[in-house]
């Protein structure tokens, strides 16, 4: 019985490893590749509760192409997009937003919301610590 299980294990191990290897290979090979059809020109306007936002970074997820919103919040994306593409809107101090492009999204009006953060600060120095007792001296 003991013999049998040990044989089973030695046979099963390379097979398992092989299938795990195949799995990783599959991930590498079938990486999502986006098809470039149905070209959509996208423009729009970005604002917050108080009005237009100047300088919002707008870029296509997974690529380098992007643009920045103007002082009146407007933008025109420099490349034609296809349905299913994702545009990311990112602005310091605001929550990052993503918009999935479909055939009707040629004009995007986006209101971004501020991120709740506490502004904190502690400095570090190389000044040696002085205990209260020594400070009095």
């Amino acid at each position, binding site marked *: 019985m003991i013999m049998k299980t040990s044989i089973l294990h030695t046979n099963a*191990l*390379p097979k398992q*490893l*092989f299938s*795990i*290897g195949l799995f*990783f290979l599959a991930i590498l090979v079938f990486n999502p590749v986006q098809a470039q059809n149905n070209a959509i020109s996208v423009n729009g306007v970005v604002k917050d509760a108080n009005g237009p936002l100047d*300088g919002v*970074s707008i*870029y296509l997820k997974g690529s*380098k192409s*992007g643009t*920045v919103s103007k002082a009146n919040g407007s933008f025109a994306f420099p490349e034609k997009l296809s349905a299913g593409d994702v545009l*990311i809107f*990112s602005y*310091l*101090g605001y929550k*990052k937003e993503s918009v999935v492009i479909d055939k009707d999204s040629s004009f995007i009006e986006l209101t971004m919301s*501020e991120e709740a*953060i*506490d*502004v*904190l*600060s*502690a*400095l*570090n*120095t*190389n*000044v*040696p*610590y*002085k*205990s*209260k*007792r*020594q400070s009095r*001296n």
Partner: protein
Amino acid sequence: MARFLVLFLFYFASFCLSAQSEDFSSIDFTEADKLAKQNRGASLDDMPELVYNLTNSLETDAERFRAIYLWVCNNVKNDYGLYAKNKRKRKRFKDDSLKLEAWNEKFKKKIFSTLLRRRRTICTGYAYLVKTLSQLANIDCKIINGFGKPSSGNPEDLEEPNHSWNAVNLNGKWYLCDPTWASGIQDSESGRFKFSYNNGLFLVTPQLFAISHFPIEPKWFLMDKTPSFNDFVNAPILYNDAYKLLSNHIGPNRLYNEIEVNSSLEISYTLKPKINAEDVSLTIVDGSSSTTKLPDNVEQNGNSIDISYKFKRKGFYDVHLQINGFLVATYVVRVKKEKSLN
């Protein structure tokens, strides 16, 4: 084939085990560091482009995060004026939550415009920028707010959260780093900031980090057994250079220690690099006099080091421990008269 796969799996599994920066000792950060250097002075106007330039040619999240983190540490200045102003206002409004919130809202805007235009900021700005840039590279990174314990001032005076740092998830595991303190040192008198990158604050051992960082949410200690606030306030003073030299601080676990005449202060650390025993020295401040002494005994065993120093006279001493001239930690020792034997 099977052997190759075993190696491959081992490579993946090795990320999930053991401790912090050592997790990545097999990863060469040279390329990431080179990219951070090549992009020195880049503007923050187009963050996606900056992130792309910093990370595009790198293979792993650890390297991508490294390039972003190093860029922030080497390109964003700590603004002493902003720091002092914020500290003053937060103190003034600490009992008035509405005014504090209004101040925070107003100041937040100023922080971000100063960060974008002049690449100057304070802690939250560093932590926020590391988070934002990491997210643009699809790396899960958070801002952790809490208490930082600097060497100036008294730990007992810590009343409200004063510091922000980052936690980053790399290969399914969380790590801690402090870009503000890694960036450089502030001269608190002249208010001048000097870039001086400290690599010791990148992916720090949680136990060591906890001596000077107390997160508001305990889960961000990343430790099973978390210290109490009292433990934190009473812990020894650790200097920035300690993070370069130590991977853990074992003892003593209190700043204030009491011993009897002719007994020793015992200090234990786990070291990062090996050091020479003769490079350890103690500066002992007693009232107005300050003397530098060698310890009575330094014992090294693998990475651990035990240092002891015997006090022959009663008194009240501030003991600053240095290794290689770098200030590591301060302990305060009250030396009492020997108790009689009967």
